[in-house]
């Protein structure tokens, strides 16, 4: 019987405490952001898809087409090609495709690169209804960034 009474009284009290807490939360300011109107800043180390880095001296990509990133990638999502232009010693990049549908943003490619030619981008606003949109031509992207 005493348990019954303490249940009724203690229970009612806990319910009132609950109501008072949610009532106080009701008058506090909102903590969410209205996403498409307010765009969050990504931190410096944010891992978006990878991008090529430009060599400041030549204006060309730093990549020397060694293919280490391609070999180290666990999901095989990088494919690249290059050829030696007439009269030059080093190979130049002609194609650098990233299949972002299978990329898991682990950073193995960036670590495997001995020349610091790739880095994570800050791109996160990615949405599409077609799979083909996620096969990125990173070389073209670099040229467009100009």
């Amino acid at each position: 019987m005493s348990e019954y009474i303490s249940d009724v009284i203690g229970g009612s009290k806990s319910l009132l405490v609950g109501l008072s807490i949610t009532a106080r939360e009701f008058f506090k300011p909102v903590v969410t952001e209205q996403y498409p109107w307010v765009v969050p800043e990504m931190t410096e180390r944010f891992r978006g898809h990878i991008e090529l880095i430009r060599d400041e001296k030549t204006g060309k990509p730093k990549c020397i087409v060694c293919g280490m990133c391609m070999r180290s990638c666990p999901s095989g999502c990088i494919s690249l090609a290059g050829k030696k232009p007439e009269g030059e010693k080093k190979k130049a990049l002609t194609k650098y495709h990233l299949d972002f549908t299978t990329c898991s943003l682990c950073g193995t490619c960036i670590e495997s690169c001995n020349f610091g030619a790739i880095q994570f981008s800050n791109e996160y606003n990615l949405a599409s209804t077609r799979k083909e949109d996620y096969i990125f031509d990173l070389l073209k992207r670099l040229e467009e960034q100009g």
Partner: protein
Amino acid sequence: MDTNIWRPILYLIGFMAFAGINAAYLGWCERKGAGRIQRRTGPMEVGFQGLLQPLADGLKLMSKQLLVPDGVDSILFRVAPILAMIPALTSMAVIPFAGNVQARAVELSVLLIFALASIGMMAVLLGGWASGNKYSLISAARSVSQNLAYEIPMLVTVITIVMLTGSMNLEEIAAAQQGGFWNWNIFPVASHSLAQAIIMPVSFIIFFICSVAETNRAPFDMAEAESELIAGHMTEYGSMGFGLFMMGEYLNMVVGACLITILFLGGWDGPLGLSGGIWWFLVKIYLLLFTVIWVRWTYPRTQIYKLLNLSWKILIPFSLVNLLLTAAFIKVF
């Protein structure tokens, strides 16, 4: 037919519009209220502060196909959502919003409203049974046991009010409470004895809990129980069938709030002896509706046998004791 035929028709149209607007906009209020409690904004995109959201939702629901799955009882499946709406709408006809603002004055209006409320339960039962879905069936069974358990304390509490007023007419019950909150049935210190005033708040709380349970609202939403029964009786419904169930739920809330206001909070009477009017009635029902929304977003759901325990072990004994004490006080004083 002592009055002109046009009066009930005009009032009915007015109350239907009132009911429709409430059914649509309580959903918006609920989403906004839940948002604020959880420190979100709630709907914001459609119209200013998302005010056109109910319209957009309604259009979306109406433009969808009314899908009747294979293996359902197709007649009952279609009837159930309508049955969820009609009793609540009909109840509006006898509710006095202010003195003489009532579509149809019925002598036994209390009885009528409770009879209609029981039909509302049939909607869940039929919808759940006709869906041919095991989750819906469990929900139907739950809803019946829940409604049976909660109608008893509710009716017993109403009997105390009827005994105090000596009438089963809602308008007369409200009229008997005019003249300031000390006359209201929640704390009738002036109109009745002090002893009576002490037990009436308990009756009020019992009635409030029962009406939340009767309208299948959280924390008593055993029939809906989205994390266990995946919306229970509404699982198989889409488009306006689902829409009618939702609107029925909100309308039942409105009717419940109106009933509490009339039975306990003096109807259209202004507190502190201020002159009464329909405004006070509306203020009271919206405060009650807000409380129901607030409760929903605070507590976790109860468990079905805990719910029945609450009714049979706590609410029914308390309401019976209240009834006996009230009878004794009326006899003594």
